[in-house]
């Protein structure tokens, strides 16, 4: 039977490294997705993902289960990513360039060439438009989109109220919609 996150956390707290590996295996892609949504480059996203799990391991002893494991790990990831984004000075490639491989790979499965062209344009412009949002607006839209998290969970992760999450989401969506209207 598969252990719950909390059971794995208890095992980690007892010093079982395998239990922590299982948690990393469950959440590494989701954490990476959130971080990549916030940062511009794959390399940076990978570094922040590693840092997130490293810090999570160091702090897991103090995790008391007051929140779910995924909100806890996302909170660590988002804080590191936002700090990294603010510090980010070097920027030889932007997220769009870095994501070109993915966008092209997705286009290879084209069926309707016209709709695929539109979709490709939309994806490219969406990535660019997301990058133009502030870290706080980017964070709400990414957390909501990837995990379908509730406003309450997002608020807990970002340390703000549900009302703030709601207004940030509304603003971020409007901004994206305005920038992408011609491609939608």
């Amino acid at each position, binding site marked *: 039977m598969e252990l719950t996150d909390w059971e794995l956390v208890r095992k980690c707290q007892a010093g079982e490294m395998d239990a922590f*590996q299982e948690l990393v295996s469950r959440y590494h892609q989701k954490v990476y997705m959130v971080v*990549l949504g916030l940062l511009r480059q794959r390399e940076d996203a990978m570094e922040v993902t590693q840092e997130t799990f490293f810090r999570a391991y160091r702090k897991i002893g103090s995790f008391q289960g007051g929140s779910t494991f995924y909100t806890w790990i996302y909170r660590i990831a988002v804080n590191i990513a936002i700090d990294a984004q603010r510090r980010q000075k070097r920027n030889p490639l932007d997220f769009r360039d870095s994501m070109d491989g993915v966008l092209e790979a997705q286009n290879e499965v084209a069926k309707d060439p016209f709709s695929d062209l539109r979709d490709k344009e939309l994806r490219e412009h969406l990535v660019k438009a997301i990058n133009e949002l502030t870290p706080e607006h980017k964070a709400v839209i990414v957390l909501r989109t990837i995990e379908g998290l509730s406003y309450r969970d997002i608020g807990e992760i970002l340390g703000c109220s549900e009302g703030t999450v709601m207004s940030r989401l509304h603003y971020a969506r409007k901004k994206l919609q305005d920038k992408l209207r011609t491609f939608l």
Partner: protein
Amino acid sequence: MTRCEDTGKSIGRWLDGELNPAQSAAVCEHMSDCPACGEERRQLEKIETTLRSVLVAESARVELAPLWREVRQRIERKRAWYEGLLERSRELFTAPRAAWAVPVVIALLLGVFSLDSYWPGWRFGASRNSFAAVDSIDAHGRSVALLRENESKTTVIWLYEDQEVENEAAEEESKSSPAF
């Protein structure tokens, strides 16, 4: 406010499942009758599905094995004593966590500087009973010194000529005045 304006603001919350059943039904009903709000919903859904597809495709590239190897290596590496200290201080002083420190420092400084109004003569390291030069003002060639004794609450105001100005004046006088 029109129905469209009301609904327009709620479509995002409807998509997020954050409306109660009654509100949700009202928004749903309006969207099925109103082409503009229906289009708004379609656009928002399109943005969400596109963003998800981009990020999901990218995250599928991340392999667990190399990531775990890196994380495990870092966990097992013995840290120097200062690394832990650096980590803790970075966490403590990283904005916005250190934001509380700014008003606290301002309040402390104001407290220290206003202490003298409530406790006259108070100074860093100064004895309460000693004389303290409170101020010295240069006005029109005269200097004013205020001396205050704390215990008897006596204040002495001392007006004296600036020595340099005095000397200069004396010199000029001696030059201009005749020998006899």
